[in-house]
């Protein structure tokens, strides 16, 4: 199974390069200097991880989608902090604190993901309703636990380092993001589970008839989404050194945007991790460029919307051409 360069991938790669070049030209060297590259890289994981979750959900087919991602991310941060606040002192045992923070956050993510997975695979809710409900539920819990106010973690060396310090020039959280992407890509491409997931998304009925354990796969998939969300939650906590219920309330749609721009088929059955990564980075570079040129944020959102529609049109066209090529 060799590495395929399809249209989408090539296109995204070009976009990335093009925007970088544009930045270099329009803004100057400061846009291309290492610090900015690192700062942009540092900003990718939050959204990138959520987008990967959305991708998994979409691949699984039958209108698969995960609206609860950012809500769960915030919730896991909040819970982790509340649990630790009175048990582990970040100042005396920063390392212990950081690790147990991550641990608890992951557990919350796991639980949340399993809840989604259960609702969708066993209770048979449509993904959009299930995750809409849990989105409100998770957010609601986070509000209730914190009375709506943000909780500052203060400066916790290991966490902060994870969020912001580059190692060998690469911000740790970005490295982690890449690692996760790599693993996910491998799983999708080279593991029975991944193959089954893709087949399931392509034709659920045929998958069942072929003996693929539909429920189990759906459950695992949405659980994975939950875990990815909680990792995003950890990244957020590390970078902002605080946790809050409504952090990134605009991320839900952006994550979907990234996935769709990456050519993930909303009908299910197809999606490539590498494309998601590239589409996440291209969005980041573009928005940084806009900020450098102090272009209004409203205008940036406008650009997003147009981009999404253009990509839809493009991919719609691609698909047809693709089929034609196969048949002809």
């Amino acid at each position: 199974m060799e590495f395929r360069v399809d249209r989408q991938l090539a296109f995204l790669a070009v976009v990335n390069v093009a925007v970088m070049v544009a930045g270099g030209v329009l803004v100057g060297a400061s846009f291309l200097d290492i610090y900015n590259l690192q700062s942009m890289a540092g900003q990718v994981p939050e959204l990138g991880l959520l987008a990967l979750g959305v991708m998994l959900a979409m691949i699984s087919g039958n209108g698969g989608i995960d609206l609860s991602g950012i809500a769960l991310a915030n919730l896991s941060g909040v819970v982790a902090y509340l649990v630790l606040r009175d048990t582990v002192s970040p100042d005396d045992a920063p390392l212990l604190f950081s690790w147990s923070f991550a641990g608890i956050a992951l557990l919350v993510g796991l639980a949340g993901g399993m809840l989604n997975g259960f609702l969708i695979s066993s209770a048979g809710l449509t993904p959009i309703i299930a995750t809409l409900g849990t989105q409100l539920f998770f957010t609601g819990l986070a509000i209730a636990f914190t009375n709506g106010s943000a909780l500052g973690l203060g400066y916790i060396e290991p966490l902060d380092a994870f969020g912001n310090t580059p190692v060998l020039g690469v911000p740790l959280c970005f490295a982690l993001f890449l690692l996760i992407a790599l693993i996910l890509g491998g799983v999708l491409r080279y593991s029975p589970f991944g193959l089954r997931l893709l087949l399931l998304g392509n034709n659920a009925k045929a998958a069942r008839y072929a003996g693929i354990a539909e429920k189990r796969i759906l459950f695992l998939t949405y659980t994975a989404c939950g875990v990815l969300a909680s990792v995003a939650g950890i990244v957020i906590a590390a970078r902002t050194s605080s946790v809050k219920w409504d952090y990134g309330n605009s991320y839900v749609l952006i994550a979907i945007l990234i996935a769709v721009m990456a050519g993930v088929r909303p009908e299910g059955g197809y999606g490539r991790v590498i494309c998601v990564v590239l589409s996440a980075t291209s969005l980041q570079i573009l928005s940084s460029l806009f900020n450098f040129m102090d272009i209004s944020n409203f205008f940036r959102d406008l650009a997003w919307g147009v981009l999404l529609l253009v990509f839809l049109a493009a991919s719609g066209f691609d698909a047809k051409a693709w089929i034609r090529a196969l048949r002809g």
Partner: protein
Amino acid sequence: MTDTTFNGATPDDNGKVSPGSAWRWLLRHPPVVTFSLIVLVCLVVGTINTDFWQVSNLFDILRASVVRGLFALGVLVVLASGGIDVSFTAIAAFVMYTVTMLVTNLLPGLPMPVILLVAAAGGACFGALNGLLVHTLRAPSLIVTIGTQYVIRSFLLTFVGTALFMNIPSSMEAFGKLALFTHQGANGSISVLPAFVLVLAVAAVVTWWILERTLIGRAVYAVGGNPGIAERLGYNLRTVHIFVFAYAGLLAGIAGIMHVASNRLANPFDLAGTELEIIAAVVLGGARITGGSGSVIGTLLGVVLITLVSNVLILVGIPSTWQLAIIGVFIVLAGTVFSLRARG
């Protein structure tokens, strides 16, 4: 092609559906489920705090249901056709702000009916655009409308304006203050049932009539049931797609004006972000997200339910911080009930 898996309802020989259990009957009549939930909530809240049984409370819930209700009716029509729309809040914001601003600055004297017409037309145009895109791009309407939502909202804030302003046209302000009933409370405090609840009533009746008594209405359900077959039987998908989104846009436009009129201010940042809650209300009313089902009455009940839950929490003494969590649970529960129905 022909799927012969038998579902629970096996007809007896003359093809009539044998009467199912009460439970199945419930599942078959989703509005009943919603209604029971409402009654339940009322009883619980009412026993905890008897202040709940007040005319003013009823008035407030009705008032708070108007804008939501208008949105929900639009969403219902889209859902019934098998689509989904998340751009209506953006449309509403755009229309309400632009129209209010234009009227204020250009022809302040404009009477309310005209304003409503303009808003409705504007909303319908945006909606039609949605429908056209959904149809031609052949992409999931959720994704398409996310795109248009971004475009419309940010176009409004980039090029039209961002400033909240209070001096809305007198006709709108008057309309917003127009009272249907006025009720004198114990401490002489007055509570009014604003006339604009009638707008929702009218919209509901019209929507019901369109869905149940016109060809396009049946076509909406037909397409929601199975687009391929509907097309083969001669229903024009393009027309249906454009209609449902245009209609949703139209109601959104009106809802926007209602929002301004009742609020007596036009704030372009308002309404954004409430779309998922509205969709939830419609689903709580028994419409299936997969299309082909849903009723006006159910939708209205769903809206009331959501409004109720978000309006009585202080009365019950629940800190409003728990509100979202509770609504979330409601949606999941209702969703489960209806998914049982789907399989039942």
